[in-house]
């Protein structure tokens, strides 16, 4: 059946988009990262490689940490997507992962930080008490060139 629209939720809010090539419609080849950033204004997820290799655009889709540059938005029908903007409570209270990153200075330039935090959140949702080695494995797809790795792992250990 020809897809004419796609519906999904982002940070708890439902969106339905019309698919097509007319102005304003969701193109069939549009990547989720572009939809999030360009259409929804959720620029916390960053574009770096667009090859699914660096993890800067990581979001959580139905519980899994996924690079959003590797996902077509039209494939998100019925999916629940959580971005870095949806992690803190509505009153601004930080998620425990975010707070641990603040407490442990677990960032430098911060460009990769949203992706690393989302991967960590997904890990903790599945494995609340990961070992340091398990955290390292989970984060193996997240690029950080400033080398904040040691502080990130300390932060995760503090809440694991």
């Amino acid at each position, binding site marked *: 059946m020809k897809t004419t629209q796609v519906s999904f939720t982002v940070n708890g809010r439902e969106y339905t988009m019309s698919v097509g090539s007319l102005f304003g419609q969701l193109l069939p080849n549009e990547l989720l990262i572009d939809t999030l950033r360009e259409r929804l204004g959720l620029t916390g997820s960053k574009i770096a490689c667009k090859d699914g290799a660096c993890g800067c655009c990581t979001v959580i889709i139905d519980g899994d940490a996924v690079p959003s540059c590797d996902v077509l938005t039209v494939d998100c029908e019925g999916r629940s997507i959580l971005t870095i903007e949806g992690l803190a409570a509505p009153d601004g209270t930080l998620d425990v992962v975010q707070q641990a990153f603040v407490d442990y200075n677990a960032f430098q330039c911060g460009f990769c930080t949203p992706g690393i935090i989302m991967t960590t959140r997904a890990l903790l949702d599945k494995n609340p008490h990961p070992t340091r080695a398990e955290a390292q494995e989970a984060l193996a797809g997240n690029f950080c060139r400033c080398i904040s790795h*040691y502080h990130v792992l300390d932060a995760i250990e503090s809440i694991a």
Partner: protein
Amino acid sequence: MARKSLKDGINNPIPVDPKYVRRGRKFSSGLDPDEYKYVGKAIARKDAKELVTGKALFLDDFTLPDMLIGKFLRSPYSHAIITRIDATKAEALPGVEAVLTYESFAELGRDVRFGYPPHKPFLSEHLRYIGDPIAVVAAVDEQTANAALDLIEVDYEVLPAVYDGLSAVAEGAPQLYEEFDHNVVPGGFPVMQSEGAYWHLMRGDVDEGFGECEYIVEDTVAFNKMCAPASPEPPGAVVRWDGGNTFTCWTASQSTDGPRTFNATVLVGATLHVQTFNVGGSYGNKQTIGYQVCSAALLSLVCGGRPVKVMQTKVEQLMAFETRLGSQVQARIGIDKDGIIRAVKGKWTVDCGGICNATQGQVAVGIGEAQIVMAKCENWDFDSALAVSNKQPAGCVRGYGGQELNSCLALLMSRAMQEGNFDPVEVYKKNYVADGDVYIWRDGLPWRAHTVNYVPIIERAAERFGWKETWKGWHTPTWTSEDGRYVRGVGCAIIGNADVGEDTSEAYVRIVPDLYGTGIKVYVHADITESGMGQRSSILRVVAESLDVPYENITIVRPESDINPIGIGLCGSRGTITYGHALANACEDLKAKLFRACEGKLHITSDLMEIRGGYVYSHTMPGNRIPIKHIEANSTISFTGYGKHVENFSIPSCVMCFIEVEVDTQTGKVDIVRMLTATDCGQIMDPAAIEMQLQGGIGAACLDTATFEENIIDQATGRPMTYNMVEYKWRTFNNFPEHESCIMESRPDSFQFNAIGVGEISGAASASATMMAISDAIGTNVAEYPATPAVILKALGKVEK
């Protein structure tokens, strides 16, 4: 070929007479370091919450009304001439607002050339590297811009190409620029060398020096795999033409000054108003942003002032943006019977790829850093040749020429140490710069090291690493597995940089009384862009401490050229000393103004006053005080202090690196087992920041240039094969060695708070330390970067050389 000399250069031997030597000066904050409330204390960065919530603004998150998207069509050949170009179809595509080719750009009558001296045309029929821009397009969106690129028709005549410095300067090599005979770029960079061009270090008498040496080694060593600093955020710019020759520029540059300074000879006569955002990693690399800024500016110009955004893709960044320099060093080093290096003679050939972007400055700094390591050597004849080649441009990267040269010279130093069977730690202790030693810095002038002594940190680092217990001697593994397959070795190397006091910086500090109550806020005007070091927060400790104002009451204004005084930002490790000094001076100036204004009210002289908690107090009668808000009749009036730092190269920094590796002799695979990075940074400003700067030496094409990072070029086509994040090898989270930071705090006279920045060099000696560790592990010298399995197996004689 012979190097041409510049008559007005200052390469001739400089009399290192005390009267010619530049020095440092004495400083004091007037405060007891044991009572600091903010300096050296753990305080969360001011931007911490923004960074963890995704609210921090980076360039690509920024947009302007009516903004166009700019895209490049790039050369598929490393050296070619365009024989035909036709952009008619692209221009006709709906949504395309402008297409510039070398032909249409010529009609504007504007000569735009990159590099120093200006040489690389913005657009040209002569293509000099893979990725060299052929055309630039501005369109209403990215898809339209990309579609337009596909419609530009180009025919080429492919030319022979050259891919390294020594080959480029050889007789008969393909010529890249008519004005660069044999591809040699003239030495000297006036911005850094105001008294004359400098590229050739000549001091003392090398023949006499070698005569004093017991052990002399000579070889040619290369560090020329042009690794990518690979910041996560690609380079980019948004530029709007404001009429005349004025542009407003929003960039992902690590400073607002970089695009203005380095593009002053590109967009000649233009006024650039520059604003930066959070920068997603730079590592010295995103300074000029030349092609991004200038193409967006020129597209905006031809589009009647519509803003144009040019964001590079990761592939463009890895394929065509600046990498580390290529470095080939032919040198002779002599060491005496006591382990003191007495003479160095050699030539450093530097490959800057298709554009020389002020690389002359890097060469001068690199030569300076060599003297910091071999500071007791008074006999030098060390020349350099700067060559262009058909590789992507190479330029500024963390280490600024120092890592490239150190990675070569340290290998030769190691061999000289082997000859004399010296312990390298002892040799580094004897040779490393200390108070009173003289070196010629990047300005070509002699400077005398001031109030530094790094022997204690070298000794402490060696002790923490367990050097004496672990190191078994040259070419001797520290451990061998029972089956003999795995061997371990340890290595060490050291590096320093006197650029920590480079260039002038100014700062304003404003005290603004609260509208209600007697509180105050402090606004800091210092042009600092945040690219990861946390310095926009760290440096405010100087202000909090100097004015005794709560840290949370201090705001640093946004990094923008028009609202801040002069300051080139955080290139190198300059931020700590230069902005710390300027801010401390601004606070002193501010206090002097406040105290003068209070003399009539407190009925005491200024020297008896102090500032605390928003009040001016009497030293002798603490009850005698006045709120700053009430100093002037109009309670909302503010007070502003001005401070500056004037360039000073008398405080060299120091980072020493110890490495342990394990080598699989069957596969040739090398693992870094542990790493210790040591420094004496003077007073610690921010404990987390200094530790992360030391850990940062693992990234940004530092440590891993020793074992697996390289920009692999297909020798048949010249195409980079490591053009994306899948192909370019980088260290992943699950492959990190044990790392220890070893930090000492002495009290050098760097500025009022006695701190020294060290971030730039934190990993600059790690590659050469790793090579020593590998050589010791497998029992033979390895000198090819990176020491991949193939290199190791060759060294072990297991595969053909």
